[in-house]
């Protein structure tokens, strides 16, 4: 069973995605901020990370930065999933190695599943 780490602080959004992904047969791990996210990533070594940007404490970009310098988790594909539509942030995320930058409101859960399945192959 593939493991997915979702770093998202909005409970209501998180439960929606968790439900959908669990229906599709994935194992879901939850983190509410970058620090927890890094800890969990190092511990569980998920197959994919879904990363929000606007988080309490440091924003999602610092997760991307930290991940690059951590050899144990640097190879995990990261998809940025945020409602923040800022060109500069998108560019930065791209530079830091995010596989994709998706605006949450533009995707249905089913479409999200399709995309992550692609990156899990």
């Amino acid at each position, binding site marked *: 069973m593939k493991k997915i780490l979702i770093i998202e602080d*909005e409970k*209501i*959004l998180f439960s*929606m*995605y968790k*439900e*959908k992904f669990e*229906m599709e047969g994935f194992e879901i791990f939850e983190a509410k901020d970058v620090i927890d996210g890094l800890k969990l990533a190092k511990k569980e070594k998920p197959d994919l990370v879904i990363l929000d940007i*606007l988080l309490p404490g440091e924003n999602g970009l610092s997760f991307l930065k930290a991940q690059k310098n951590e050899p144990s988790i640097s190879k995990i594909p990261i998809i940025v999933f*945020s*409602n*923040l*539509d*800022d*060109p500069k942030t998108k560019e930065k995320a791209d530079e830091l190695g995010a596989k994709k930058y998706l*605006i*949450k*409101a*533009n995707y*249905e*859960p*089913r479409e999200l599943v399709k995309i992550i399945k692609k990156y899990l192959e």
Partner: protein
Amino acid sequence: MATIFQLHQVILFLTISIGLWLAFWVYFAGKTKKTNKYFFWMVLLWLTGEIVPYFLFRNVLLSQKILFFLPKLEIAFVFIFFIFFYLFSINFLKETNKFPLLNKLIPCTAIVGAFLSIFTNLFLERVELTEERMGLNLILTPGGKIIWLGFVIIITLFILSRFLLNYFRTLRENKLRFQYFLIGVFIWAIINLVFNVYFPIIYNTFRYAYFGNYVIFVFFGFTAYAIVKRELFGIKVVLTALLVGLIAILLFLDAVLFTQTLGIQILKGIILVIFLFFGYSLIKSVLREIKLREELGIAYQELKKLDEAKMEFLSIASHQLRTPLTVIKGYLSMILDGDYGKIPEKVQEKMKDVYLSSERLIKLVNDLLSATRIETGKMELKLKKAPIEPIIEQAIKELEIKVKEKNLYLRFEKPPKESKLPTGQAKKQLPEMLIDSEKIKEAIYNIIDNSIRYTQKGGITIKCKMQNSKCKIEVSDTGTGLTEDEIAKLFESFSRGAAGSRLYSEGVGLGLYIARKFIEMHNGTIRAESEGKGKGSSFCIELAMK
């Protein structure tokens, strides 16, 4: 003879006072800065060079030796002065690191020159007692003349050239400082060259030398002002003021010294007053113009800040709006997908409507964000080579549900595959173009979406072809059509009041505005045509091939 000396003394006293004041003013304005320190020493040296001869030469009964020695000091002093002049200028220009060799060479050469001029007779041939110039006339050796003047001129030209070179490279604020310095140097150099160089060499007389010496304070004055003041009046103002002052002085002198008749004197006096009045208002208007320009600059900066704030606010607002919309859209689509089991038909129907409404809201938020970004100039193109057909097909796919709901057709008439080339290869009809696929897709989506909204029966046809080395995309519908008036206002954003003319409350009228902007960012054009109400409309996009 006595009167000349007294005039000398007055002028000397004045210049020493001004000089000291300038030197200390600059020094205290920046005790730590090298530029200020070099300036201070430069001025002090000059003053010493002027004071010593004047006070000592008054007593013509000095022994012959001293009489011969002091002028040598004077020549030496010029050498030393130029060390500080060079050091000061290089520091003022912030080019201390550029000429490390010269930084050592010039002072060394100057010191050698000073040494030689004091302890040998290489420079000074003889001294003559005359009535001019405080009683002493320096006659230099021919070789001495060349070396001494050569040294002076070469360094001055070098400094001037560095200034001119740097002048064209610096920012506006620095330009002013340089302008002041240059004007001061220029005036000083010209007058000095005439009275201290040309006259002595050609006419062998230092009679007018003091003229050149005093004018150095013009140079010092301008430079000091440029160093100390942070905010300088534009050079225009200074030059205008100088010119007005000069003409006023000349008019005055003319009226007082060279006019015989009282009547004409009065007339000239009146002319002087009128002139002063106009000169004053001229300067005032120049100052006002400068102030206005500054205010404009500040207003512009404020506007830019406001734009930034607008964008930041909108980014955050749209993020906040999107979060609950995401939840609504998410769960609705999962329910409609059957993830929570079967739901009654009736419920499904209504859920679909709710879903479409939430989609509308999401599109609205996206459009508002895009429109504001376009208007504040923050929209950027990400150009990549891509074929146009898949983009159109993608837009069509995203609108399939909508057309099905309204029972309309949505056809894409691709260009016919051209007959094979002689080589047997199929000619690609639509080559790849350098475009931002996302934005072109959104533009096409918005246009088709708009057509769907205004078409009740029939459908929409999309054609695409190459024409005159341009890619032409045509979207035609069998809908309500447009009047000429409507066509004119069609692509404006709602902020211009155009949407008021639209009868349908669906949509805010931003879709076509954004479509037009995106196409125009690609240097393309978009046109709407219609034969009138009820006769459908067609939208024509033209993109240049790149």
